[in-house]
């Protein structure tokens, strides 16, 4: 009798462990996928920047500094941890902003078809990066929460789940909306 109960309890515990382990794996996978999404967009912007610099160079003779800044930030982007990438990405965002701000003073440049297209592409990519970051940070939050709460934290430690880093931005980010019914 006792043996039967013991077996039932053991089976229940094993099932629980499997369930928790799978749910943690799923959360971690989501974080990985979300990160891949950011990477895709960062890469896209990375590829667009040389075109932009080439197009803009001919027009902006006196603004070499702005262009160099973008090129420099670009080269530091493709390696490093989440934190490094976030920092480099923010620098590029700022540098691009100043290029487009300066471009306002060059009517010929603004009329350039190529430039217009690049501007739309880059601003589209910029907002996709923001959305990808939002999804990534939400995923990280759920994952981090998942490995910290009892009793998952024991299993997380046992199976080597570690906290993931957020993709931080400086300054204004749209706040989370808390939806209550």
């Amino acid at each position: 009798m006792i043996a039967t109960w013991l077996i039932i309890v053991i089976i229940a515990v094993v099932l629980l462990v499997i369930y928790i382990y799978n749910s943690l794996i799923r959360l971690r996978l989501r974080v990985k996928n979300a990160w891949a999404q950011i990477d895709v967009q960062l890469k896209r912007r990375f590829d667009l920047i040389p075109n932009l610099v080439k197009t803009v160079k001919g027009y902006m003779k006196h603004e070499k500094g702005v262009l160099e800044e973008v090129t420099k930030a670009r080269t530091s982007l493709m390696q490093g941890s989440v934190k490094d990438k976030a920092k480099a990405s923010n620098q590029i965002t700022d540098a691009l902003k100043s290029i487009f701000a300066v471009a306002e003073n060059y009517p010929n440049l603004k009329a350039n078809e190529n430039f217009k297209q690049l501007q739309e592409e880059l601003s589209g990519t910029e907002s996709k990066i923001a959305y990808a970051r939002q999804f990534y940070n939400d995923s990280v939050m759920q994952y981090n929460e998942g490995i910290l709460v009892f009793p998952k934290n024991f299993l997380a430690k046992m199976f080597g789940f570690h906290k993931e880093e957020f993709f931080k931005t400086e300054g204004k980010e749209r706040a989370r909306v808390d939806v209550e019914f």
Partner: protein
Amino acid sequence: MSFYEEIASNKRRSYFLIFFFFVFVIFLGLMIGVLYGDKYFGLGLALFIGTIYFLFSYFGGANAILTMTRAKEAKKPQYTQLINTVEGLAIAAGLPKTPKVYVIEDSALNAFATGRDPEKSSVTVTTGLLEKMNRLELEGVIAHEISHIRNYDIRVMMLASVMVGLTVLLSDFLLRSFLWGGGGRKKEEGQVGTIMIIVGLVLAVLAPLVGKLIQLAVSRKREFLADASGAMLTRYPLGLANALKKIKNDPDPLVDHANKATAHLFISTPFRKVKKSLMTNLFSTHPEIDERIKRLEKM
């Protein structure tokens, strides 16, 4: 109640509804069977017709809807901004694949999402919507549609349409077979058979009506939910709130090629406004737009 719990409970409700519909189909099949003196014949027939009908609508439904509403695929560079917005919000929602983007040439302000799962989905907007909405409002509308996709609403809505259509089909068949056939065989049935036929008859009359009401209730609940999830994606509930205000004040809510079969898909009801009463309230596919705006502004 938190937002995720709401999604979960809504999903449970949808599963229950689908289950309920299937039970209903089986029941109607049995009715037909009793009428013909062979329960298994009726059951088999109902399940056979049901399955074929189901497969056709499930795999061809989305395309049929796009053809019916005369939607055309949106292409760059004309619709670059729209495509970018859809791509961005699909990323924000973590969709496995970017939905296809379609446009309807129509001055009305409307949009819908359809498909059977997030991998095979599409978002459609009218050209009128693109002209009259600013970027934030467009984002709000698209986020609402993307939420329908992510929450699997598109699948449930499609299933609901399939089920309602099927119920109508079967109950129609039941009525016909009562009127035309069965007369001779009926006498051989016991009292139980007669009672079942009467109950079946009542059900056959009520079935399309009940089915329709359930579809509407599901559809309306989903609109609130999609509004809320959309706000989670854009982090800016007022975008959609302002878009809904524009839609509300637009004098031309009609989408030319919308009909009763596609109405529940749209972001706001594609028909002319009718006088408000309990009946129109029960039969409308969408909740009151003012109520939706109010909820969005409170977030």
